[in-house]
Structures are given as C-alpha cells and as structure tokens.
C-alpha cells in the first residue's frame, strides 16, 4: 500500500520535472547547435552535420516507433500470445542493404567536403601558430610580425581558486575567451594556418571558422579558412595539454583588407620599437661591463 503510494508520488515528480524541462530550455542562453560559422567551408560542415542529424532522426523515429508500439501493444498484461517466428532472411537482407545505401548517400558529400578542406594550395597568406604550455605564438610569415597571445588579465584574475580570486567570473566580459593579443586576419582571403607546438600537443579550435587541427611538437600541420564576415571569433585549445589547458583561448578578429594592412603596419612599428628598446638595453649592459 505504502510502496504503491510512494511509487505514484515518484512518478508525479518525474512527470513534473519532464514538463518543466522544455520551458526551461527556452530561457537558456543561445548555443545548443553547431554554429553556422563565417567561412567558405563552415557552412558546408554545418550542412553536413544537419544532414546526418536529420537522417539519424528519421531512423530513430522508425526504430523507436517500432519499439514503443511493441512495448505498448505486445505486452503480456494485454493477453498477447507470443508469436513463434524468429527468423526471416528477406527482412534481414533488406535491413542490411538499406542502411548500406544510406551510408553511401552520406559518404559522398562528406568525402567531397573533406577533399576540399584538405586542399591547401593557392593560399593568400599564412600564419605559423605555435602552441606552448599555456599560450600561443603567432608568426605572420613574410610580414615581420609575430607576437604571443595569452589569457587576458581580467579572466586570469577571475579564474583563480578561492581565496585568490579577485574578480567574479560572471562579471568578466568574455570570461576565459579573451586574450591580450588578438589574431587579426583580412576577410575574403585564404588564410593558411601552419600549426606546431613547442612542448606538448595542443589543438587550435575556433568553432565559427570550422574545424580544428592538432599542434604537435616536431610536426607541422596545416589548416585553412577564408572568413566571409568581419567580426571577432573565439575558441580554445582543444587537446589536454596540462594544468592550464582550460586557459588557452584563441581570439581571431576578421577585418577589411585596408584595416588589416593598417594593423600590420602598426604591429611592425611597435615591434621594431620594442626590439630597439631591447637592443638599447643590451648595449647599455655591454657598455656597463
């Protein structure tokens, strides 16, 4: 008696919980699906993702539908007599061949996109990216521009374990997704990224640019993107690389061509100034000796 009541109560609680979930979900912040992205290839990847997702949904409806029907219709409490058959070659051949054909249907567009993604020829510019524990180094090849990129100061103050925390993470803009030096790239140019690492394996991932590659010591990996919309795009290291793996953000700023040239010029001046400064100091030390 008591157990029956309790089980009824538990059932009600679960039902309520389930009804509340979709309502809650609506209130949640954006981001339950892959972003469409802003590069020539990311739209392709997104479409591929959705194609396979919908194929899975259709198969799920059929399979789970059959399961649910048999769970409700073919139960002993309804007085059903179990059928005697347990074999049917024709059916089994059909449900081996049809999935095979569906797979071929998926494989063709996937292979097409993949071959395009892996074509690194005819790029307009290239950046060498080196992963370190735990920051990135960017070297604009042939441009005399290179810099380190680390977690920004506010995120760093907020990410400390209590009681060393000086800021509340909720109050930091782009908490853990902001850096001191952003990567700036021009739009509508094929940017080749050459990836390597100095110590351990890292991975460079900005979801909206589409895809990631590992940065491996002793190996140079390639990836490319061509951003079509100006904006700021954020990502993170995606390969476990030690203690501060979670604190290696990547921020890419895509700008118009002229703006990019101006930025390059500015960087060059700054870096020359810094180098002069350093060499002045060095010669000062030498003089002192």
């Amino acid at each position: 008696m008591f157990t029956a009541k309790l089980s009824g109560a538990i059932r009600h609680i679960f039902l309520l919980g389930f009804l509340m979930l979709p309502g809650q979900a609506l209130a949640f912040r954006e981001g339950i699906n892959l972003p469409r992205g802003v590069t020539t290839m990311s739209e392709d990847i997104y479409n591929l993702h959705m194609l396979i997702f919908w194929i899975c949904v259709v198969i799920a409806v059929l399979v789970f539908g059959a399961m649910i029907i048999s769970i409700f219709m073919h139960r002993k409490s309804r007085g059903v007599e179990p059928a005697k058959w347990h074999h049917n070659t024709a059916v089994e051949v059909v449900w081996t061949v049809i999935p095979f054909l569906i797979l071929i249907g998926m494989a063709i567009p996937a292979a097409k996109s993949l071959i395009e993604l892996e074509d690194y020829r005819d790029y307009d510019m290239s950046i060498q990216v080196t992963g370190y524990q735990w920051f990135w180094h960017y070297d604009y090849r042939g441009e005399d521009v290179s810099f380190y990129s680390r977690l920004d100061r506010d995120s760093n103050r907020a990410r400390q374990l209590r009681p060393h925390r000086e800021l509340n993470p909720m109050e930091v803009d782009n908490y853990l997704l902001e850096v001191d030096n952003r990567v700036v790239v021009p739009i509508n140019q094929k940017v080749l990224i050459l990836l390597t690492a100095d110590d351990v394996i890292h991975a460079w991932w900005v979801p909206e640019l589409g895809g990631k590659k590992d940065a491996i010591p002793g190996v140079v990996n390639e990836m490319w993107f061509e951003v079509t919309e100006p904006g700021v795009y954020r990502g993170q290291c995606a390969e476990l690389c030690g203690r501060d793996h979670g604190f290696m953000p990547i921020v890419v700023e895509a700008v118009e061509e002229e703006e990019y040239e101006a930025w390059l010029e500015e960087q060059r001046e700054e870096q020359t100034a810094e180098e002069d400064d350093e060499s002045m100091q060095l010669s000062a030390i030498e003089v002192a000796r």
Partner: protein
Amino acid sequence: MSTATDTHHDEHHGPASGMRRWLFTTNHKDIGSLYLWFSLIMFFVGGAMAMVIRAELIQPGMNLVDPMFYNQMVTMHALIMIFGAVMPAFVGLANWMIPMMVGAPDMALPRMNNWSFWILPIGFTLLLMTFFVPGGAPAAGWTIYPPLSLQTGDAFPLLVFGIHVLGISSIMGAINIIVTIMNMRAPGMGLLKMPIFVWSWLITAYLLIAVMPVLAGAVTMLLTDKYFGTTFFDAAGGGDPVLFQHIFWFFGHPEVYIMILPAFGIISEIIPTFARKKLFGYSAMVYAIAAIAFLSFIVWAHHMFTVGMPVAGLLFFMFTTMLIAVPTGVKVFNWVATMWRGAMTFETPMLFALAFLFLFTIGGFSGLMLAIVPADFQYHDSYFVVAHFHYVLVPGAVFAIMAAAYYWLPKWTGYMYNEFWGKTHFWLSTISINVTFFPQHFLGLAGMPRRIPDYAVQFADWNFVSSIGAFVFGISQLIFVAVIIGCIRGGVGRATDRVWEGSHGLEWTVPSPAPYHTFETAPEVK
C-alpha cells in the same frame, strides 16, 4: 557431523570457510562474485571522482579543486571505470555464467582463474598509490599521450606497472574463457547452439588477447622514453608523438568493443526472456558480433582525425568507421524484431535492457555523426564526444551489467530481489543519466572543449543541469547496493529454479541458488 563414521565423499566439495574461501578459491562462482564485488567497489571509487569533476563544473570559476588535481580526477576516473569497473564486471559475469550456460562443472583453468582475479586489486593498489607520490597521480588523460604524459612525476612507473598487471589479468581471464568455451561444452552443444552471451564473450576474449599486449608495448615504450633515453615518441630524437597515438588506438578502439560486446550478449539473453519469444535472427546476431569485432581493428585512427593525416587515410578511416553502423544496426533491428509480437513484461532487468536499447542507439547515432570527418573536425575533443561515449558506456555497458545483475541475482543468491526498489533504481538512473549527458551534446556543439576545469559563462546553464543529473545518478546507485545486499540476505522470498517465466538455457535447469559445483555430469543438449 563430527562422527568418524561419516563417509560423505563430497565434503571437500563445499566452500572452505572464512578468509581462506575467498583467498584460495578456485571455484568459478566464488571468483565471479569476487570480480563483481571488486567491480562494484571500483564503480563507487570512479564514481566519486566523477562527482568531484561535476562539482567543480557546477558553475563557472575554479571553485573546489586545483586544475592539476582536476586533471588527475579526469584521468583516474576513466582508468578506474574502464579497467576497474566495466571490464571486471563482465569478467565476473563470464565466470559465473559461462560454465553454467555451457554445462561445465567449472572454468577450464581454475587456479589461473584465482590468479587472474587476485592480481587485479594489486594493479589498482598501484594505480591508487599514485595519489600519494611526488607529482601526484597521472594527469594526462587515460590516453596518456606523450609528450604530456612524460611530464608525470613519480607516479609514472607505478602507472605503467599497474597497466601491465591489469593487462596480464585480462589476458589470463580471456585465455580461461576461450579454453572453457572451446573444450567444456556439454555434449550436443555445437558452437551455433551456444547462448549469445557465450558467443559475445568468446569473441571479446580474442579481442583482449589481441590488443592488451599492444597497450603493454605502448606503455613500455613510454617508460623507456622517460627513463632510458629512447626517443620513440620524441621528435628531437627522430621519433614521432603521433606514433604513440596510432599504437594506443590500435589497442584503444577494440577496447571500446571489449566494453560493449558482452553487453550485446547480455541484452540478447534478457530481451527474449521477457518478450517470451526466441531471439530474432540468432546467426545474424553472431555474425554481426564477429563483423563488429573485425571492423574494430581497422578503424582506430578515427580517434585521431585531427592529427594531420593524409586525405587518403582520412577517407579510408571515415568509410570503414561508417561501415560499423551496418552490423550494429542489424543487432538493434533484431532486438526490436524480438520484441515485436512478443508478450512482454517489464521486470527490472527488462527495463534496463530496454533503456540500453534506446540510449545505446542514441550513442550510436552520435557515433555515426563523429565518423564524418569534416564534422568531426568540429566535434573532436569537445563535449559532444564526452556525451557520445558516455551514452555508449553508461546506458550501454553499465546498464547492461545492471540488467545482468538483476536478471541473475535470484539464480546466484536463491532469493528474489525487491522489485519496487529495483524499479526505483532503474527510473532514477535512467532519468538522471539523460539529464547528465544529453545537455553535453549542446555544450560540445556550442564550443566547449572536453577536459577543461573551468569554462566560459555561456556554458554555465547546461553544465549546471548536467551536474545535478550526475549527483542524482551517483546517489541512486546506493539503492542498487541496498537491493543487492537485501537480496543476499533473503530478499522478498525464495526464487524458483526457472526464475523467469520465459527463461531458457542450462543455467535455469539447476536449483536456485546454483549449487557450488553445477554440473558434475554434463547435461545433454539436443
């Protein structure tokens, strides 16, 4: 019975008493129980680590543990759940059930059986000791990729030795299972008359023998790289870190099938029983398991699509990986066809089996999505992957083990477990596991990498939901322990020999509890 006139010959057939019974036992049932208890304890140890992980992730900011300790938790949670909880549970079930299912008196190599169990706690003592040595426990993930894993402190040799010991245990267990199945079947039981559970274990045992030495080789190479100046995985000396990944996943991919094929076997026993209908397409099921096992050897690189492989390699691994969907699909269709037009009842083991079927299929779908390389470039190392493999391993492997425990508990103990609490355990587990892992798909797609101890604010809500689900799941497992102990202590009454109305197979022809030596004369199978 102290009279000298007592001439019973079977006195020594009963178990020894006290500690000696468990330390020195060669009886497949005692060893099976040891494996299962060990696995249950490890399930809680690994589960406690999962609770630490989810507690840290409940809101943004570092709240509870240091990032280094977080990485240790992530690593040890995986190692313990794989090698300590799931694999020993399956071996325990094999020990208990295979001799009874094939009509044998015991396992073929009983003394080795004792050893293959008792070195397991030794291996885990080594692994758990790593928390107390300078540098702390391994923190490079269970995949222990170099160069990061070479930064481990004094824990490193303990880790490698621990893995060796666990591998030896698995190989000995696998040999025992193969020899038992090959040599000790009852007269008349041809290979294609064996229960599917026995089939699934026969194939799994071959996988174990094939891949555990590969893992042993990989970790030994790491060891010599760290201590003896070799440079297998060091580019500075002519090696390649990616080589380790190829070797590791040549072990690691079949390993994930080692953790699911016996589950297929269990589900293929339970669904026909409670649908009161024979398994649909028995031989197709056997061939499907064999096909999956074969394919598992040629798809390893799908774990490393982002390491920069040539496009031909990517295409090969993409196509072969997608191909696994065919035999897996056949299995799911056959299970559904077994239920179709059956006369189903929904006792706890059947509920767990149905949840397996439903949720494992969802894990299969996300697996198919992961096979598509361009999309995998987005999913790889994100929470989408975490969601995928937890759908396969928790409602997959773990639920199958729980289904098996409820299904065979009456046969093991001689008593029925409490159905109400069994069902409560089921519903709490099933709902909470979905609350835990379903939102992780969203997190991954939205861009949250895996293995991070802290995250950007936009991931806060789903992480909160996921953590709450995890805590409920963790607490619910205490019910499981209570039901098991309650059942051993008498449960809700005596179990009949044929516990379930629709059950068939040799294990149901003997009394409940099953006698210490089941078949002294082999039963005849027609």
